[in-house]
């Protein structure tokens, strides 16, 4: 790898990365955790001034507090596409943050690096034959492959339809591609249609929004807060019979271990 910024700028993929990080064009990357963490990181080395305002504090603050956050599995482009697609599935709105800000892309990244990502506890003996719909997906490839190939399909489709990468197209264009995926109109890899990828991806997004923050998503328990879910509480004995709704500050498994 080249080590000087001036040389890097000649490399188109490098330029695209700059773009994705939000340092080149603000606004495209919704103010997610990736945008701010990466632009911050890059800025340090390149001294490119940040033009994208980040909604949650300055990039430097993020960096300082988030040494626990980095990809375990994805490359940068995959992480960016994941964040952009996840945000369409669970977008930021008046209720609160969307998937991007909640760290869902990191959640997905971490899951793909986990035993789940390599199908550790699924039956893997052959032959792999495609059965009826009622017999389940045939899963000849592992989950991490399904997701990365799916992301690749999103990118390829965006390029062939709009001559731009998935991250750079408009929200409406993204939705149209995701809808075709959901309907199975875009095929991801032999036999595994976009539908399988989409359903798995959608499930991952919901998990990233609502699982305990220890997994990398649901940042600051903001996913739970939006739906007034109290997270991990020891007992509801005092409220279980109440007629009125009882809202409580959520607690995570972290809270469980530090008292």
């Amino acid at each position: 790898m080249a080590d000087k910024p001036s040389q890097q700028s000649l490399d188109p993929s490098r330029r695209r990365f700059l773009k994705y990080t939000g340092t080149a064009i603000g606004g495209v990357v919704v103010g997610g955790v990736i945008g701010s963490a990466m632009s911050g990181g890059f800025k340090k080395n390149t001294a490119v001034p940040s033009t994208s305002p980040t909604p949650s504090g300055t990039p430097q603050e993020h960096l300082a507090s988030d040494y626990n956050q980095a990809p375990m599995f994805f490359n940068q482009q995959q992480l960016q596409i994941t964040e952009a697609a996840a945000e369409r599935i669970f977008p930021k709105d008046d209720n609160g943050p969307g998937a991007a800000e909640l760290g869902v892309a990191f959640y997905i990244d971490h899951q793909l690096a986990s035993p789940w990502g390599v199908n550790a506890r699924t039956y893997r003996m052959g032959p792999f034959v495609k059965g009826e719909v009622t017999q389940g997906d045939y899963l000849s490839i592992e989950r991490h492959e399904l997701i990365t190939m799916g992301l690749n399909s999103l990118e390829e489709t965006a390029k062939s339809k709009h001559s731009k990468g998935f991250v750079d197209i408009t929200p409406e264009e993204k939705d149209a591609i995701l809808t075709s995926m959901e309907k199975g109109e875009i095929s991801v890899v032999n036999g595994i249609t976009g539908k399988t990828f989409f359903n798995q991806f959608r499930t991952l997004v919901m998990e990233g929004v609502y699982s305990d923050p220890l997994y990398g998503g649901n940042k600051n328990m903001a996913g739970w807060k939006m739906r007034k879910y109290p997270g991990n509480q020891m007992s509801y004995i005092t409220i279980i019979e109440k007629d009125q709704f009882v809202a409580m500050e959520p607690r995570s498994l972290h809270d469980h271990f530090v008292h």
Partner: protein
Amino acid sequence: MATKMPKVPVVIVGMGWVGGIIAAELSKQGTKVVGLERGKPRGTADYYMVHDELRYASRYDLMQDLSKETVTFRNTDKVAAVPMREYGSFLLGEGLGGASVHWNGQTLRFLPYDFEIHSKTVERYGKQKIPEGMTIQDWGITYDTLEPYFDKFEKLAGISGDSETNPLIGKRSAPFPTKPMVKTPILKLFEDATKKLGYHPYMMPSANLSEQYTNPDGITRAACQYCGYCERFGCEYGAKADVIVTALPVAQKSGNFELRSYSNVIQVLNDGKKASGVVYVNTVTGEQFEQPADVVIMASYVFNNIKLLLTSKLGKPYDPATGKGVIGKNYCYQTNGGTASGFFDDKTFNLYAGAGSLGMEIPDFNGDNFDHSNLNFLHGAGIRISQTGQRPIATNSVPKGTPSWGKDFKAKSLKYANSVISVSPQGSSLPWRHHYVDLDPTYKDAYGLPLPRITFDFEEQDRQLIKFVAGKAAEIMKEMNPTTIGSSDQLGPYNIVPYQSTHNTGGVIMGADPSTSAVNSYLQMWDAENVFVVGASAFAHNSGYNPTGTVGALAYRAAEGISKYLKSGGMIV
């Protein structure tokens, strides 16, 4: 070659609800028992970090490792079966306590009608009411004979329930050991609505203790905290009855019980008439051991009970072509469908809180509690409301017409997160000649044995049943006055992908006739008097109730039979 262990009077395959109860009963009486469990040991201390929906509910941390073993499935024998590669329709237990660790605790008794379903149907409607191919048969035992065993199981677990007996369910010889669970606002809505409609609601009998309880063995457990992490999770309080906090301490205290974990049984040694022991693999080292025993007890859940009998060539395999043979016959499931969801724009409930068996149910449309003369199905469903704790990954209900992702989905799923409740039928599943379990010709487990193969589908009977009870569920929901109702009365083909219930039954069924059943009313094999096959595998059909109340009763009945057998030998009558 397998290392031969010293002979013991009793060896038990599987340490779930059934294995634990039998171990406790026999060892308490002074009989030496060895319990073999393929999974790891575990207990309450392992659930300190259990409020983790992703790990336990979405990733099935406590369930069987499917990389080693699973089942294969097909809807009909016209297509090839394929393996259930990841979890879906049901979740198999593994490790000390089996599925008792991560069940809900809904502990209902089957109806008197269930045990005599064939006779009673013929008596009331005539023989022609039973459609061609439906193989319902009597269980070889009556409710009244089984009643004392239900009572024993309920006292072991401390089941919480209403003090008054509902007129539409089996009579009780004693009240429930503990008071009912609390009646939350949504349960009250259901109670009012069903009473107004003239039905007979009652609190769901619960193995989540409503209050502190000391059982007849002197074991004291704490009350349920309504923590909302029950089904698929272990209970960190020991409030949920599982075999580790109830029966196993009794076995361990007796000094007559030896537990061997990481021991996967691969064969029942036998000469076709009697068993001489079992062979198991130490799953850590791969070493094989032979454990000789006077009595072999199969308590390894429906699928492994069937599979090991077939691979060990014990009992007559069922042949769907002739309807003859018994091992694998009458495989049934649970017919769930027809749920009515109510979305309330003006009400919020504390739905994040709840317990596995916090609920109410009406028996009015279960069993033969209603007239089937003009209906084209038999049996029925329990219709219920429950408040088990709406965890956020799994529960994101939105009104019909809402997309499943994006802006509108997000807004609606948040809006109704604490304002959607449902009334659900839990339907019976009746047996058919062409529904069965046998051995898969292609796929094997990690030890080289064939996987059990399920051939099963929903039938017209099930579709008609769901259509009927869906109407009742929607009627009740309407009476509860939500802003909008979502319901469907359609039942598709059986699909192994979505979770439905871990209520698999049959395959080694009980009865009075050796030509149509595999075990007698003590769960003793007709073809091998020193083998007892215990669990829901003995059910001749599945009722519109969760199975474990009846499984527990049968385990006590079997323990009694085994102890009689150890004294006198021969078939127990």
